[in-house]
């Protein structure tokens, strides 16, 4: 079922918002490139509500030796223990073989954010 949420520009890049759709608690995120993603609004580690302080960040990856660099890819950092969540798959970046959080498709229709629940 598709649910129209709010105008595309209502969230700035890097902002997140909790929405309730059909009794589900869902986190809607606007990434730095302006695109949207959505996840179940609970961390699979210890159950933190991700909208209460969760942050969008650039993914860091290993560089040369003990160095690292930022990529364009975004992650969501859980507000409790800082686990990095892959916004595309719902997996923990550090442990992609573990359980994945539920993701939801988001599209933009007539300049509005539409969630597929």
């Amino acid at each position, binding site marked *: 079922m598709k649910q129209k949420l709010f105008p595309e520009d209502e969230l700035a890049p890097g902002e997140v918002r909790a929405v309730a759709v059909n009794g589900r608690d869902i986190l809607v995120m606007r990434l730095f490139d302006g695109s949207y993603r959505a996840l179940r609004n609970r961390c699979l580690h210890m159950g933190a509500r991700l909208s209460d302080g969760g942050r969008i*960040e650039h993914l*860091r*990856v290993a560089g040369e030796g*003990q*160095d690292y660099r930022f990529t364009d890819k975004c992650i969501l950092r859980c507000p409790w223990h*800082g*686990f990095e969540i892959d916004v595309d798959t719902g997996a923990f970046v550090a*442990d992609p073989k573990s359980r994945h959080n539920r993701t939801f498709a988001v599209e933009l229709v007539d300049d509005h954010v539409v969630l597929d629940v």
Partner: protein
Amino acid sequence: MSERELLIDADVHEMLADVEEVYPYLPGHWKDVAAQTYWAGQSVFATGAHNYLWHRSERGDWDAKGASGGTDVDATCGILFDHEGVSIAILNGFFHPGALIGSYEFNAALSSAYNDWQADKWLSKDARFRGSVHVVPNDPRGAVREIERMADHPQIVQVFLPLTYHYEYGDPLYRPIFEAAVKHDLAVAFHHGAHTEVGGRYPRYVAEWHVLAAPCVGMMQLASLVFNGVLDQLPDLGIVMLETGAAWLPWFLWRADENYKEFRWEVPWVKRLPSEQIRAQVRVSTQPIGELPIGDFVRLVEMARCEDVFVFATDYPHHDGDSASTLAPALPPDLRRKIWADNALSVMPRLARSLDPVPA
């Protein structure tokens, strides 16, 4: 236990009857320093530690058979190979010049002398002995030279590093030692000693020290190797943690994984979960199994999914040493085969190569 079952003892302590035994192996200048200066006669076995941290503390039944604190080669062969059923014994020494503070040049000379003494007095006497390269960690270039010097010896299977609170082995300073070990297919073994402090000091009582020193500093160094990326950057490196105990491992794996997920941003050069790195590259000795019931140990192994991690060790000749016969009855055959031999062989390529053909 079948007579043909391969049993590798990862931790045997051969011992100098007197430190003067290494003097003939020292080059002239350092021989003079050892024999004729203020250094002469000082206790190098327990400097700075509790004055009753014995340098001879053999298990009573082994002592009765002539263990002599691990100073007697023939008695050691009789006890380990005949009585205890050990097939291969890896020597880790009890005199660890690499743990002495300062004077790295002299300590390096002592390490080289000890390595030559070990080869002469022990390795050459029985083909079932395997040896360690003792080095001074804070002289990494010298340590690499010593590894290169000893690496061709067919019975040398590992580099020995003293388990100490004072160094953090993940520091890039020490990386050349690990790289040299990998280059020569040598594992790196860690063992505590009288030098091993707990949190930068000695606890007031030996009882506290004996509970804490090896596992606490062992965990500290394991965390250092994991989070500084040593294991990730050297995937062929095998690490053997000796006498650090067993029961902390499940907690450590869970906690290290959890903190990796939490702080991966700080150490993005770490590419695998700590538990994956440890299961693949780190081995932990079963000794001291102590009062842990063997059935509980088996459950612990299952709980932590670390059936590939533990290696058998006697800690001969020390008073808290273990016998394979104590563990054997309660170990399922598959797990026993892993702990007896397979787990050690999988991270110690030189050991594996030296067993071709496997001795009966």
